[in-house]
């Protein structure tokens, strides 16, 4: 195995495109090193992207925030501006692992690891975040939901990697939240997760909403009927019940030792309802 730590995006994509053999991207390493250790990954090459400019930066851009691919969960949680604008995304990232894991884990890694139960991904999808993909012809931006295609699989070409994610600007009267169900209080994998972002107008009527469910399908499910159930309402009990019903209807979970189909279907609605209340209160309702 060889270890590469290039200093530019160009050098990195060139390495990925060359015929060195299997090459894995290293940012926080909290998935990759575990996989290597347990024999699930035996890469010929590791490409450490942390020495590339911008990979460790949280930068204000067009009223939103750009997160470099190597920004850790801990760094997100300590960033006052990011936490004020996107508390749901920050709390979703903050749920990943222990303090030690938080020191290294990244939302871009969470996205590219493509686990259906990834905590930060429903929150990023609800936020309409985009991923900036670096490739041989420069960079391109795509919605984050288009990065994972199924468990452990992404849409990226061999010579591409995600260099950053961008959380766009939204009106001040907006809020977001992420909730997950786990059977204990700390450090577990989501049985169901729900990310939700909404915007209210001056009199508290919902003008925009986006709802994303995790761990109840092979990838994150965007529930458009749930967003419609909120829009035009004051996020009252009737709207919340319609939201919950839409989420339960959209969930397509498997049954495993962590939860049955019936449980996950029901909890999808319960979490969406609770997340909507938190998001609405953050929006100033």
């Amino acid at each position, binding site marked *: 195995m060889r*270890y590469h730590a290039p200093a530019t995006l160009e050098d990195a994509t060139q390495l990925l495109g060359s015929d060195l053999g299997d090459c894995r991207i290293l940012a926080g*390493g909290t998935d990759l090193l575990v996989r290597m250790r347990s024999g699930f990954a035996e890469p010929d090459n590791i490409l450490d992207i942390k020495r590339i400019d911008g990979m460790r930066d949280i930068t204000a851009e067009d009223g939103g925030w750009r997160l470099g691919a190597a920004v850790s969960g801990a760094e997100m949680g300590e960033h006052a501006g990011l936490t004020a604008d996107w508390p749901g995304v920050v709390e979703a990232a903050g749920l990943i692992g*222990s303090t*030690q894991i938080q020191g290294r884990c990244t939302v871009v890694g969470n996205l590219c690891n493509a686990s259906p139960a990834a905590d930060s991904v429903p929150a990023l999808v609800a936020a309409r975040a985009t991923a900036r993909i670096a490739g041989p012809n420069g960079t391109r931006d795509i919605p984050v939901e288009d990065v994972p295609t199924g468990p452990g699989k992404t849409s990226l070409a061999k010579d591409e990697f995600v260099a950053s994610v961008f959380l766009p600007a939204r009106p001040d009267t907006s809020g977001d939240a992420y909730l997950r169900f786990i059977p204990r209080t700390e450090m577990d994998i989501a049985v169901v997760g729900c990310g939700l972002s909404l915007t209210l107008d001056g009199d508290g009527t919902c003008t925009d909403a986006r709802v994303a469910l995790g761990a109840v399908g092979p990838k994150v499910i965007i529930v458009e009927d749930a967003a419609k159930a909120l829009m035009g309402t004051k996020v009252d009990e009737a709207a919340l019940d319609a939201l919950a019903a839409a989420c339960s209807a959209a969930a397509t979970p498997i049954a495993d030792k962590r939860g049955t189909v019936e449980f996950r279907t029901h909890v999808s609605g319960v979490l969406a309802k609770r997340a909507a209340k938190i998001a609405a209160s953050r929006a100033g309702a």
Partner: protein
Amino acid sequence: MRKIHVSTKINGDPTEFLCEPDETLLDVLRDQLGMTGSKEGCGTGDCGACSVTVNGRLVCSCLVLGAEAEGAEVATIEGMAEGDQLHPLQRHFIENAALQCGICTPGILVAAKSLLEHNPDPTEEETRYWLAGNLCRCTGYDKIIRAVMAAGKEMREAS
């Protein structure tokens, strides 16, 4: 495999080592540098026995490659006491019997020191959450938490 030359600082001392590309920082510390205070429990970031700080950030050294330590400042349990003078956390661990077999202890001390640097006056709940990534199968945790709270109090009063 070609070995990688790494220049780093460990507990304030400039240190150089050669490592394999897939060698972890934990393996380098233990097998090459003879710093066996950091323990390997699980090797997959679950137990915290290998906790160190890299550039002031608490991490599991089993989930860091040795090569990543280039230019970094690493702090391990070996840098905690000053000569014969134990760190207040170490003293309170002894006074509170916060250890039995001792395998988890270096990692917990490093993690607790990092907690008190980030938050000198943590609540018990904050302390328990911060240390949730450090597993101990002997003590039942209560004595550990009491020791950390007592050390924090002493350090606040001394500063």
